[in-house]
């Protein structure tokens, strides 16, 4: 996983709530067997409308998505995170994320930042009025900064440490292999098995 320390970039204000993962990446894109090449599928249906914010020339190269509440609801498809990253987003700000999407994002180095809706409103107003306005997301300081706006955000220490260092969960877990083996040795015999081995 790519490490995340601090990022500064222009924003895309997305004034919609309940943006589900079917909107972020429609199902027909899920037939791909790779982790890349999803950028053209990002918000595919909405991008057919030239007025959609992502299509505006002034938003080209933006890397911070400022979204409405309940972003990433629905399917567990990690492709939603890959699509956002493939397109160029480094971080997503919302007042509320769906649990599975949030977990997926943090495992891929896409920092999802939870801020109060009032701050999200202020970021929308700022970046709609001035498309060149930049937002800084500072994971070390756990702080979001933009012109006239400073807001701290919470992220549990363990997730933060893994993101700052770009650590891979599996190798961390395998350091505790002895604990797993000890647990396996005491599992009851009535638990089902898919194979007889």
């Amino acid at each position, binding site marked *: 996983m790519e490490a995340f320390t601090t990022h500064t970039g222009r924003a895309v204000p997305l004034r919609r709530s309940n943006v589900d993962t079917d909107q972020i990446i429609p199902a027909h894109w899920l037939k791909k067997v790779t982790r890349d090449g999803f950028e053209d599928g990002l918000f595919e249906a909405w991008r057919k409308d030239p007025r959609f914010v992502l299509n505006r020339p002034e938003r080209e190269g933006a890397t911070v998505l400022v979204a409405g509440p309940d972003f990433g*609801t629905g399917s567990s498809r990690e492709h939603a995170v890959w699509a956002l990253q493939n397109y160029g987003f480094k971080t997503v700000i919302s007042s509320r994320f769906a649990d599975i999407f949030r977990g997926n994002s943090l495992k891929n180095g896409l920092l999802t930042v939870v801020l109060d809706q009032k701050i999200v409103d202020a970021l929308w107003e700022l970046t709609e009025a001035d498309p060149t306005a930049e937002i800084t997301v500072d994971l070390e300081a756990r702080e979001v900064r933009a012109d006239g706006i400073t807001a701290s955000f919470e992220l549990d220490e363990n997730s933060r440490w893994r993101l700052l260092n770009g650590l891979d969960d599996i190798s961390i877990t395998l350091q505790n292999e002895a604990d797993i083996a000890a647990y396996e040795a005491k599992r009851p015999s009535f638990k089902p098995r*898919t194979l007889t081995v």
Partner: protein
Amino acid sequence: MGRTLAEKVWDDHVVRRAEGEPDLLFIDLHLLHEVTSPQAFDGLRKNGRPVRRLDLTIATEDHNTPTLDIDKPIADPVSRVQLETLRENCAEFGVRLHPLGDVEQGVVHVVGPQLGLTQPGMTVVCGDSHTSTHGAFGGLAFGIGTSQVEHVLATQTLPMARPKTMAITVNGELPEGVTAKDLILAIIARIGTGGGQGYVLEYRGEAVEKLSMEARMTICNMSIEAGARAGMIAPDETTFAYLEGRPHAPKGEDWDAAVAYWKTLRSDDDAEFDAEVVIEAAELSPFVTWGTNPGQGAPLSASVPDPASYDDASERLAAEKALEYMGLEAGQELRSINVDTVFVGSCTNGRIEDLRAAADVIKGRKVADGVRMLVVPGSARVGLQAVSEGLDVVFKEAGAEWRHAGCSMCLGMNPDQLAPGERSASTSNRNFEGRQGKGGRTHLVSPQVAAATAVLGHLASPADLAAADARTPAGV
């Protein structure tokens, strides 16, 4: 202080607990399908890691599989590659796979329970958000992303932050004609699509205890639509009776030991939930959605709401956008909404009881002119059972299409899709924009409402069918 059911199952699976770290949980069963696994197997290969517990892992093909001509090569080359990739990965790593054409193939959440692999007190994961279905047996079951699929393949564990618990108590008995689907749609409308975020939901109360295992699966299946990763129901005699004799259910002394353990799996009387919701079953009636998220629903007898009636600005905007997308007017009666397509199937309502319920309503009637009805069993076994009961004949005589098993039109990854602007009554779980096909419009309904809607051509309940019969003199 006592513990909740969720806390008991959680505690029984902690491999490692350390200050400042998420708990490391052991996973009892890992279900795989073709869509969310290829990148995970790639990760294993890249790092030279094996699958740690092949005996706790099982795969099937469901999302991409066609429901017609399943003996022929799959027409869509991209779908074909994805299915072939799963077959190659399962062969290379040694994972048990039930491919298209196999008698145990089907929607992963129908296959696990019918094999008896899903049992009380287990942790069950799958790269699919509707894994919450399996919580109906009193286990902790939740959907995971592909990175976590790889993590479970490699370690049989997952680091997880302990969730909060929410009790959803349904008092009294469901009125005649009100189903598990109506109940869960009403619950989601009540608590919202984000209401369950961070929680495990425990459904309890008289109405829940009286539900069959399959109805309980319908309820737990849609927990994710309320934002909860998992939903669960304490196991009881209904659960044990469903499991006994299934291929992977414990046998002999193991059965006795298992049942003794399973009986301990209920929230203690003095357990405290972090949140509680109480529903009065008597107040419920058939429920349908009008919008583009599963929380945007109302009783079938109601009208499309006026967005202006919402106090919350973001809900108002969401309702406005939903009505625009759905092509509906505020104040329009829900019963006046005509549909083009009716879909009966999915991990929510694709089990044998669902097919029986739909068949019971449509038997001896005809699908309305201009309406297409698809009936897709949740698994090949469900399909065989339905055929043995003659349900396929009932559907075909009514003018419906009887298909092979899979996820089908729930998400339209295979050829079963809505055309732009087409409207469906669907027994599936998501009414998101474009979910069933680009520009398609979805109303979520129960199997009974789906069947009645197919006959009348507009959203309707079986009671409406009876009323329509009464208006038409016999012999006319």
